[in-house]
């Protein structure tokens, strides 16, 4: 009986990782979001933008190229980072409760945050592994920026989770939105620009200064995997916000549609900010996030004290 339950749970986890909302759903969704962001920015700049299938074509084209030959341990490590980034981002998407009553476990929000942060850490490590001066500068920028926005990101999520007495994502998705949650969601949205390397926090891959940043030395299928990981990051990060904003109701087919609609709206919002702003320098970016962090740290602290009954 116990074995059957364990088997069922592992099958369920595998299905969530590989089928829905995992890779089978998340990969086309990632390409759609990447296209939507590029198209929206292009239209706001009065350009026609890429065709709908362009992210897919880009992926296929890169995958069809030869794998770069890398020798020695450093080469193997360099090839390992994009695989880890894709696996982590896919795992993060698999944890999202797109369907109502989709399971989950206590503390899965913490796992989601860890998995969501892995692609960024892989990017930093990849930049240093490649030993290119442009990649190293990009990695340093990404690392500094990551520390800056993660303070705000984590405090905002802690404040939301603490207000609902739970670190389970589905519990947060099913609970009603309070004013504190909307503050937290606003803080998370501010962090998403940094997390997804969008203007004004796109300095880690500032193409006019340091080419592709940490990915300067990557090409072919490895670069395709990085692009895929980035697309999956889009789904996971915007999906987390959609989970917190869109309540589960109606028939079973409605929540996935609402989920996709919500992440599309979030992507449009981020594209609008990206098109309207220029790239900030590293010190300005850090200063911006540290000021936000102070506000939301106070909110999170008040929330935690409230739950502890000390107010």
């Amino acid at each position: 009986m116990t074995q059957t339950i364990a088997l069922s749970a592992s099958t369920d986890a595998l299905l969530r990782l590989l089928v829905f909302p995992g890779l089978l759903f998340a990969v086309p969704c990632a390409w759609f979001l990447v296209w939507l962001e590029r198209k929206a920015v292009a239209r706001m700049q009065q350009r026609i933008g890429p065709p709908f299938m362009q992210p897919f074509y880009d992926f296929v084209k890169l995958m069809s190229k030869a794998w770069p030959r890398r020798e020695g341990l450093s080469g193997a490590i360099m090839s390992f980072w994009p695989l880890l980034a894709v696996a982590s981002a896919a795992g993060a998407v698999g944890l999202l409760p797109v369907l109502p009553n989709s399971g989950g476990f206590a503390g899965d929000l913490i796992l989601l945050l860890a998995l969501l942060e892995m692609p960024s850490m892989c990017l930093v490590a990849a930049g240093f592994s490649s030993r290119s001066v442009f990649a190293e500068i990009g990695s340093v920028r990404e690392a500094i920026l990551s520390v800056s926005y993660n303070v705000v990101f984590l405090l905002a999520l802690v404040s939301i989770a603490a207000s609902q007495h739970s670190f389970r994502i589905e519990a947060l998705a099913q609970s009603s939105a309070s004013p504190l949650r909307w503050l937290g969601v606003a803080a998370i949205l501010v962090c998403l620009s940094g997390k997804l390397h969008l203007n004004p926090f796109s300095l880690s891959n500032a193409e006019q200064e340091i080419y592709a940043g940490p990915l300067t030395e990557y090409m072919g299928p490895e670069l395709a995997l990085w692009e895929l990981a980035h697309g999956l990051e889009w789904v996971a990060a915007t999906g987390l916000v959609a989970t917190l904003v869109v309540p589960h109701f109606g028939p079973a087919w409605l929540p996935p549609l609402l989920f996709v609609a919500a992440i599309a709206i979030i992507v449009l919002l981020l594209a609008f900010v990206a098109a309207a702003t220029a790239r900030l320098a590293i010190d300005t970016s850090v200063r911006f996030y540290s000021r936000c962090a102070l506000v939301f740290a106070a909110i999170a602290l008040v929330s935690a004290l409230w739950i502890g009954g000390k107010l």
Partner: protein
Amino acid sequence: MNTLLLLIKNLFSRPVTVRFPAAPPVRSGYRGLVEYDATKCTGCGMCAFRCTSRAIVFRSGKTDFKWSYDPAQCTFCARCIDGCEAGALTMAAECPPVYLAAGALKRAYVTPRQRPTPPAQPAAPAAPALPGTAPAPGEAK
């Protein structure tokens, strides 16, 4: 605020770029592909001499000369056009076509060298009459 209004306006207005394979309209004086007129070329090779990107290659032989042009290397600077005194080179007033194979637009012409036509001989000046010589027939006395 002006930026936000501009973005919203752009979002609902027609894009200024076009989707491939459509090409944007060109204006007069547009520098397209270099076109060669073999009937006018004198084979001086000045175009190849002036071509800094080595898109034009000129090979001179005794009986003919070969003129070749690779648009992939051309920077469309029009220095060859400016240097062609015979007017054998012009530039197409349309966007260069898209090609999928390397060297697909490369062109070469072999033109037989024409025997230069001798310039018309000017009439020889009349030799001054030496003292004691008979004047030429018809010469006025």
